[in-house]
């Protein structure tokens, strides 16, 4: 589903190279974890996958379902099924969460040439998905992410993911700022979306989240490259020994 080939990318503004020859393949149905110390390029990778303009790809390619997406803008990528759950979800003052959901869902449908959702259909979908994530309907009336607690923000991200039904989900440090109860709810939400035609990339600093979202593959990102790939045991190894060993071996 996703094939990243010898990717090099830098910050557009100052030319700092962050991704330096990254290779990664993620198959449909797979849950891939990307781990790495701070500053290794994890969040940058999520931004580049979703097409943020602040980064420039200088070499290599990203193939999504066999086609390069480098020329697509973020909205086009989203309409094709790429979803990023943000580490720091952004506040949109004055725009009710419900309204935002409706606009996002319908814009994606429009881009794919599908009919807009009827209001009853939309309401039914939102209600069901919100109940799954134990989201209080009152929260949906509040402006998106404005005054939300850390847990509410992350749940709102997963709610959007559930409703937009993406094919490639990228979760950027979704565990940060969550207590264990909130973490479980979020993990259950992500697990419920597992399907044979959907791939998930879980970016995380700690092994903790992977107790709840069990990965098929684990990749260690360091200085803009994948330096080691393994299965879920690799995450446990990292938890026990830290990154120093693996980094040492790679150097």
């Amino acid at each position: 589903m996703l094939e990243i080939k010898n990717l090099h990318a830098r910050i557009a503004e100052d030319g700092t190279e962050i991704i330096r020859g990254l290779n990664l393949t993620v198959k449909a149905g797979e849950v891939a974890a990307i781990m790495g110390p701070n500053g290794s390029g994890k969040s940058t990778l999520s931004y580049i996958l979703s097409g943020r303009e602040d980064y420039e790809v200088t070499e290599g390619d990203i193939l999504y379902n066999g086609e390069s997406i480098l020329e697509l803008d973020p909205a086009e990528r989203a309409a094709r099924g790429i979803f990023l759950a943000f580490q720091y979800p952004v506040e949109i003052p004055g725009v009710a969460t419900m309204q935002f959901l409706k606009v996002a869902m319908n814009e994606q449908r429009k881009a794919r040439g599908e009919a807009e959702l009827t209001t009853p259909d939309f309401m039914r979908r939102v209600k069901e998905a919100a109940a799954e994530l134990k989201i209080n309907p009152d929260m949906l009336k509040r402006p998106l992410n404005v005054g939300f607690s850390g847990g509410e923000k992350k749940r709102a991200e997963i709610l959007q993911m559930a409703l937009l039904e993406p094919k490639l989900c990228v979760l950027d440090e979704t565990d940060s700022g969550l207590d264990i109860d909130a973490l479980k709810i979020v993990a259950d939400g992500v697990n419920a979306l597992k399907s044979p035609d959907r791939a998930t990339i879980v970016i995380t600093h700690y092994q903790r989240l992977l107790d709840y979202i069990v990965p098929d593959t684990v990749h260690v990102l360091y200085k803009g490259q994948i330096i080691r790939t393994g299965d879920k045991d690799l995450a446990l190894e990292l938890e026990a020994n830290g990154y120093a060993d693996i980094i040492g071996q790679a150097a």
Partner: protein
Amino acid sequence: MAAVQETIDQVRQIDVDQYKYGFETAIEVEKAPKGLSEEIVRFISAKKQEPEWMLEWRLDAYRRWLTMEEPTWARVDYPKIDFNDIYYYAAPKSASGPKSLDEVDPELLKTYEKLGIPLKEQEILAGVEKPRVAVDAVFDSVSVVTTFKKELAKAGVIFMSISEAVREHPELVKKYLGSVVPVTDNYYATLNSAVFTDGSFVFVPKGVRCPMELSTYFRINEKNTGQFERTLIIAEEGAYVSYLEGCTAPQRDENQLHAAVVELVALDDAEIKYSTVQNWFPGDKQGKGGIYNFVTKRGDCRGDRSKISWTQVETGSAITWKYPSCILRGDDSRGEFYSIAVSNGHQQVDSGTKMIHLGKNTSSRIISKGIAAGVSQNTYRGQVSAHRKATNARNFTQCDSLLIGDRCGAHTVPYIEAKNSSAQFEHEATTSKISEDQLFYCLQRGIPEEAAIALIVNGFVKEVIQELPMEFAVEAQKLIGISLEGSVG
């Protein structure tokens, strides 16, 4: 007003800059000779079959105007206006005065149809769900038709063009005209007093709650023509009325002048809600053409416990110079001003309000949302003052500005003056930009850039949109979205 929606959708397809009402109606017109003189004032007065006292009133204004200087304090910049290069009177030949709909030129009806303004009462009545709105349609210098007059009359409400009112209700006009905005108030108000052509007159008698929304739709069609609208609304003791005005004009290379005067009078316990959706042609991408919107709007809370509320959505005009104000004369009276001013391209906006607290326990509230894009300049200018007898005067002011892009400007100029120690005034102001993070977040959810900006902006103005009559709120939101098209990149 689903029809407005349709119009917006239709015109969205047409790619003439951003302005969607730029078409022109081909219709035979009768015009006064170009320029301004006593002769012209007499001509207008004669056309309107006015009584002598009205003509004298106008001539007095004209003579005073000759001695006045054009004001220059606003933060707007435009070449000097040649007041002798303007037509002061233009009327469709067929419409010498308001009459029944059957007699109105079909071309005119088509124009309003295109604009989405319902003029046919039967059609409006047929639609069960549609709210009923009485409309006074003003085309250049004359009122074409006023709907639902009979039904309103049953409730005792007078709703007609000001020209008619001068003839039919001279005692009311004499009593109230110029009582809020005196003839000598300011340069443009004085000019308006001399040459005003048409506008609406509303009188809601004691204890009557006006049974429907009233609205006036202003259209400037003729080239080089100034529109000098005069509107007078009176709510007697305990009366209530909600009034909405809408404005559009064709797309032209020359600038056109719109210098209106609006006067509101609220007696004891009366309430007037006045909403404006102003979408005059703003000029093209290069800043050529567009309407100069130099307007004096003022409400007098003359009675105790009276209330006047202004809500405005300003998206059009090359230059806007307007400060809908409230004189809080009655004890316990209340004034409100809710404003959204959008400027894009080369537009210049200098708008705000004045809340003049004279009575005891008076209160006022100002919520202003300015949105600047392109190379436009957007200024909020507001005055809040408390007279020394205005004990316990209260004001809350909130001015928020949103910048889109880095070549536009937002300015806030508040004047606050309290002459007694019991007054409490609060002023809050913020300026922000649509952040890259917000935009990227929306894009990532599949919302394209322009839709994302419209969404964020509508969130920004939500507090004010809520104040509009419901049926216009949705249209106003869409209008704001359209006004900002092409504002990024």
